[in-house]
């Protein structure tokens, strides 16, 4: 049964985890082209596991993951690399790479056996450098970059890979508020202007509410998914944390410490 519609990803009744232990189940969501979606939830609820499963790094336990018109498992690794790119929490193994070299690696799925860059590849690399304000840093080594700059480089690499879906695992950790907003704004632009579908996990719920088109809340039960405003109305954020510690203020879309 091939699924033909405008959805880039659609996930139905997904269960994730490891053979011995299910971490999360009953996950359902659909994302269209050009949507920015945040995945929120408390620590250990399965955000990273979900991302690893969607990225094809670990098998799902049950349910279906559709990427475009095909089941995720049906993709060969080289076909998948043209449809799906990732930004992981792990640092690049070699910090001796220059910014430009690292971003150029994003073109690997398209280059020949020697990895020779064509004019098309170089244009794409320039566009990525440009979009993430990295033109002045292009010859910098990764170990010379700040956390915020390195994160921008990693996202720029994913953009250079030119896939319809980009998955990011906690792109805002270790960053200050300014750089958090900066990277999320850039993701939003990438999604809306370049028509990429972007899914990221985050702990910045307040920022996600303001910037995302869709939010998936992993709560260990029904995992609500939808428009941020809709989710606020349905009081899903109120139940995210124990109310004796933190309370959600629906008017401002922010959390307050319970007095």
């Amino acid at each position, binding site marked *: 049964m091939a699924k033909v519609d405008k959805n880039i990803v659609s996930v139905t009744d997904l269960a994730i985890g490891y053979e011995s232990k299910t971490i999360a189940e009953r996950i359902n969501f659909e994302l269209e082209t050009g949507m920015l979606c945040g995945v929120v939830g408390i620590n250990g609820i399965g955000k990273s596991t979900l991302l690893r499963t969607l990225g094809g790094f670990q098998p799902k336990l049950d349910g279906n993951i559709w990427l475009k018109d095909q089941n995720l498992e049906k993709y060969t690794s080289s076909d998948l690399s043209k449809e799906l790119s990732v930004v992981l929490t792990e640092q690049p193994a070699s910090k001796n790479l220059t910014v430009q070299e690292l971003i150029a690696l994003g073109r*690997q799925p398209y280059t020949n056996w020697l990895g020779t860059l064509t004019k098309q590849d170089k244009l794409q690399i320039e566009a990525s450098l440009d979009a993430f304000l990295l033109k002045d840093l292009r010859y910098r080594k990764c170990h010379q970059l700040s956390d915020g700059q390195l994160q921008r480089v990693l996202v720029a690499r994913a953009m250079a890979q030119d896939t319809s879906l980009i998955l990011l695992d906690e792109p805002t950790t270790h960053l200050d508020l300014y750089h958090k907003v900066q990277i999320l704004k850039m993701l939003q632009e990438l999604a809306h202007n370049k028509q990429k579908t972007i899914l990221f996990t985050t702990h910045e719920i307040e920022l996600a509410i303001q910037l995302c088109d869709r939010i998936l809340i992993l709560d260990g039960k029904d995992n609500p998914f939808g428009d941020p405003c809709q989710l606020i109305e349905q009081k899903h954020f109120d139940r995210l944390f124990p109310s004796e510690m933190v309370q959600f203020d629906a008017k401002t879309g922010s959390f307050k410490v319970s007095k």
Partner: protein
Amino acid sequence: MQGAKTYRISFVFLTLALLCAWLLNISSGSVSIPFADVLSTLFGETPETASWEYIIWDYRFPKAFTSILVGGGLSLSGLLMQTLFRNPLAGPFVLGISSGASLGAALLLMGVSLLAGYTSFSFLGDVSLAIAASIGSFLVLLIVMIVAQRVKDTMALLIIGLMFGSITSAIVSVLAYFSSAENLQRFIFWSFGSVGNLSVNQLLLLGGIVALGVILSIISIKSLNAFLLGENYAQSLGVSLKKSRLTIIVATGLLAGGITAFAGPIAFVGLAVPHLTRQIFNTMEHKVLIPAVMLYGAILMLLCDTLAQLPNSASVLPINAITSLVGAPVVIWLLVRKRKMMF
């Protein structure tokens, strides 16, 4: 990418340096031959002393050629391992690959004759020595690789490499205890390392093994570059992890094992040369690094061999000692100056 021209200049410079090192290597030795005569002999003229022609063509020329193969091949295997293990301290010697080759060679040189009960070496052809050493290094490489999958810790890997070194020397001691003096001497001389005394056939075989290793490395250029990001990223770029890992391991095993079989365990070249090369070539692109480390390694090996030759004297120092004397301070210097070793 960043100015292919700058690399071109460095490559021209390195090639010239290689030529100089080669000439220096050929013109020095236990018999003093004037430089002009060396040159004229190389250009096909007959020198005034007939024995010089023999010395240059039949002894020094193959020796220089072996040095180039050994230096280039070991450096390349070091580069491959540093990328594969994502570890700046990886190298054929540190990770116990050379120990594995030693074990293979020891089992063949001393063990087989023990079992067979006679000391004839007639059946121990060059091929069997190469195969034994290659299998030894390949097995150790596989074990290290399996351990590396389970243990992500860099230190643990290096300690495992050291342990392999200990196990090897223990087994070698046991073999030596029961071995005949003649066989023991063969093994000891082999373990000193030497780039001389290779017959034309041995040289051709070594050349073939190194060439095969280089070809496999060139095929792996793209996946090697992807491995710089880490294995998960490499996978997301469409690299087939199993296939490319195996190709790189086979290439490393062939290079390190084959070379160790013919030239003995030669320390530090594989570890130090990739780091030295990165001081000149400011890139991580393996398309540039592979030829660069091979050139650099060949130059270094020629120079070490020239030093080992002790100009104008009949004594030849063990090449293994020279490379350690040169290589170990280089590693210390890199660590002290850069504070952190990176790959």
